[in-house]
């Protein structure tokens, strides 16, 4: 996409992994303001929390294998699903792709040497770390881990004696981390684009990170202040939400979802960006409907901010409220649906190479479609009354957040890993692990749709015997999925130490800027800032005969 000649030969320059700045050793990482090193700090911390969260999920599934007690008591179960939710949401999916791959690749994709505010960027990682530590503290302190669910609904969250306050402050601080990342990305996209890169020459993942960043900035303060008010209510007994003190619990739910619905777009938009990035590379052709995909990210961010009360269809809103929120929810589905059609159309007449990143992307499309279509079902008022707060919802959001964002995260990791580390993982193993993951995931979550429709409520430690068959299948799914996840991480860790070295700039045949710089990138990415003359994903070489990438 850019003029090759303007990229000077930087082979002699040292990679960001070896670069020695003011500090060396571990401090060279902990105090580095290099966006790539910060991205790696996030990658390590997010992966650790993902593994902890997955372990909790695995334990929950074990408990649900049989009715009655299987391995733990109800109080433990309630704490574990709360921790699982808090960790997965606030410490894994929300920071997710922007914190790791946004930090690492956003500046490179727009031809910049760093983000606009590198020190703020480092601060945001520290806030993330403090938030994470507080969350861990809430497990260890006397009083016991919070047992409210990640939604902290009032009045239960002011009544329970567990450590709700540290958990609230953890979420509060993590919010600031997210806001700072948002501010940084918006400014970076506005001010740091390389010469010639006008808005419609930006790669699609930049568009989606940009849209996400606005949601992070605008929506996150609302959850911040709401959680702070819950703390005020708990500590000082001020009546805001607690009916016993004259407050309104439904007001809390509105405030909570005014953030937490847009938050689901913070989670999914960056993954959609990664999908739009990976498909053209492995189909080796231009993306279908570039402008639409770019604009739909903005549309989703905008309209997605107006549908929060679809989480409250059984709370007793006015008929007008129900009508508006149901209608808007249905409308928001359209831009997402069209994105899916665009992705599938991009496969048409491509030359498709099924490398691991592409496999994860195809699974994303399948699973995100299930998540999205069941989301539409939940927007249908009478249907939602039946499935609200049942395992149907649990299935739906795992299909979106795990089958979608989670798989998008894994796709990104397989796609950019060789660029980030200059090492290649075992591709054959990665493909096998993918299939185990795909089968495990769907076995784990699909049965939850069925039992949810039949009336199995969520956040249930115990259940009626007629639901056991679905629970058993689901738990078996977790026995496939979780080992596959560990194998995936194992494959990466092995590759870091023993993997084949990659020095080639462009392992997959991509046309965005990261594939034109050294592998791994040098300290400030570009020796000379590139001049951009073309839109991304041109693939002008399509008269060439391509070879399948041999598994390395």
């Amino acid at each position, binding site marked *: 996409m850019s003029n090759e000649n303007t990229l000077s030969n930087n082979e002699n320059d040292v990679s960001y992994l070896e670069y020695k700045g003011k500090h060396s050793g571990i401090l060279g990482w902990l105090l580095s303001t290099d966006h790539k090193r910060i991205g790696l700090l996030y990658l390590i911390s997010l992966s650790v929390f993902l593994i902890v969260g997955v372990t909790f999920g695995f334990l929950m599934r074990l408990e649900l294998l049989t009715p009655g007690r299987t391995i733990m008591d*109800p*109080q433990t179960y*309630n704490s574990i699903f709360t921790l699982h939710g808090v960790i997965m949401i606030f410490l894994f999916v929300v920071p997710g792709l922007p914190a790791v791959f946004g930090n690492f690749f956003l500046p490179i994709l727009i031809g910049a040497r760093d983000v606009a505010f590198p020190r703020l960027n480092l601060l945001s990682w520290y806030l993330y770390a403090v938030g994470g530590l507080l969350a861990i503290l809430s497990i260890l302190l006397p009083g016991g881990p919070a*047992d409210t*669910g990640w939604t902290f*609904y009032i009045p*239960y969250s002011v*009544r329970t004696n567990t450590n709700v306050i540290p958990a609230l402050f953890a979420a509060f601080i993590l919010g600031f981390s997210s806001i700072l990342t948002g501010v940084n990305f918006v400014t970076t996209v506005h001010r740091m684009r390389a010469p010639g890169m006008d808005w419609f020459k930006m790669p699609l993942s930049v568009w989606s990170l940009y849209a996400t960043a606005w949601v992070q900035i605008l929506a996150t303060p609302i959850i911040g202040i709401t959680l702070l008010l819950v703390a005020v209510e708990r500590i000082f007994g001020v009546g805001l939400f607690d*009916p*016993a003190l004259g407050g*309104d*619990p*439904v007001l809390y739910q509105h405030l909570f979802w005014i953030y937490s619905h847009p938050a689901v777009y913070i989670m999914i938009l960056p993954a959609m960006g990664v999908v739009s990035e990976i498909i053209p590379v492995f*189909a*080796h*052709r*231009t993306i*279908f409907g570039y402008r*639409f995909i770019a604009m739909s990210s903005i549309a989703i961010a905008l309209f997605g901010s107006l549908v929060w009360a679809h989480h409250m269809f*059984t709370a*007793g809103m006015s*008929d007008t409220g*129900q009508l508006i929120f*149901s209608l808007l929810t*249905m*409308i928001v*589905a*359209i831009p997402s649906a069209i994105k899916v059609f665009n992705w*599938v159309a991009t*496969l*048409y007449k*491509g*030359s*498709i190479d099924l490398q691991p990143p592409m496999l994860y992307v195809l699974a994303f*499309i*399948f699973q995100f*479609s*299930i998540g999205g279509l069941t989301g*539409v*079902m939940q*927007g*249908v*008022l*009478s*249907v939602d*009354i*039946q499935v*609200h*707060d049942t395992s149907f919802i649990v299935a739906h959001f795992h299909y979106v957040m795990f089958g979608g964002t989670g798989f998008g995260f894994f796709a990104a990791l397989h796609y950019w890993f060789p660029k980030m580390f200059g090492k290649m993982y075992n591709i054959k193993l990665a493909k096998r692990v993918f299939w185990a993951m795909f089968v495990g995931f769907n076995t784990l979550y699909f049965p939850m749709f069925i039992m949810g429709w039949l009336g199995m*409520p969520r*956040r*249930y*430690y*115990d259940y009626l015997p007629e639901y056991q068959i679905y629970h058993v299948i689901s738990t078996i799914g977790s026995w496939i999925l979780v080992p596959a996840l560990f194998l995936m991480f194992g494959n990466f860790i092995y590759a870091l130490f023993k993997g084949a070295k990659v020095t080639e700039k462009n392992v997959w045949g991509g046309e965005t800027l990261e594939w034109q710089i050294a592998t791994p990138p040098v300290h400030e990415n570009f020796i000379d800032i590139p001049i951009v003359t073309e839109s991304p994903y041109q*693939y002008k070489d*399509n*008269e*060439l005969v*391509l*070879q399948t990438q041999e598994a390395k």
Partner: protein
Amino acid sequence: MFDGVSNFSQSTDLAFFFTLVVSIFFLVLITVLMIYFVIKYNRKRNPKATNVHHNTALEVTWTVIPTVLVLIMFWLGWTGYLEQSRIPANALTIEVTAQMWKWSFKYPNGKETDSLYVPVNKDVVLNLHSIDVNHAFYVPKFRIKKDVYPNQKRSAWFNATETGSYDIACAEYCGLNHSYMYNKITVMSENEFNAWLNSPAKHPGEILASDTSLIKLPDSAK
């Protein structure tokens, strides 16, 4: 799938069935196309790709058709919901109290029970409130669910269409024994119901023992 036994089950199940069929159609379409393209345009078979930027007719079609479909879905859900939100007059009205972790029911004549007994084919209104935290009154077979709040009133209603005994669950997380906040709703013929309501018996089974000539109970009510 269509085992609902209240006046709402038909409209809810229809909305569910319609959205399900449309969803399956789109999922199959997307998946089949994906697999077909991946096979047909595999790099081994098709080493030369072709750039296709866009196709206006196609794009208009795949915007308009889903829009029309979601509007139909919306309408089905909305009309079903409206039926539920219009609380009928002249119904049997029962006060429902939720607390950690049980339900209690109070009938117009002052009678109080732990399980719910209602007559078949008659409008029943439930006035719901909680004395501690949030709960939700959920009868899966009736397709009704309503959140229950402390210090606030909510109402739900239904008209049961088949006698029998069905589960009531709590669907809003309410702490330690949330999953044990189960109870039964028993639907009886109007005569049996009235006989029971005006007797001192707690459970319909008790009248049966004292006066067998009065009523014949469905098995499920025992």
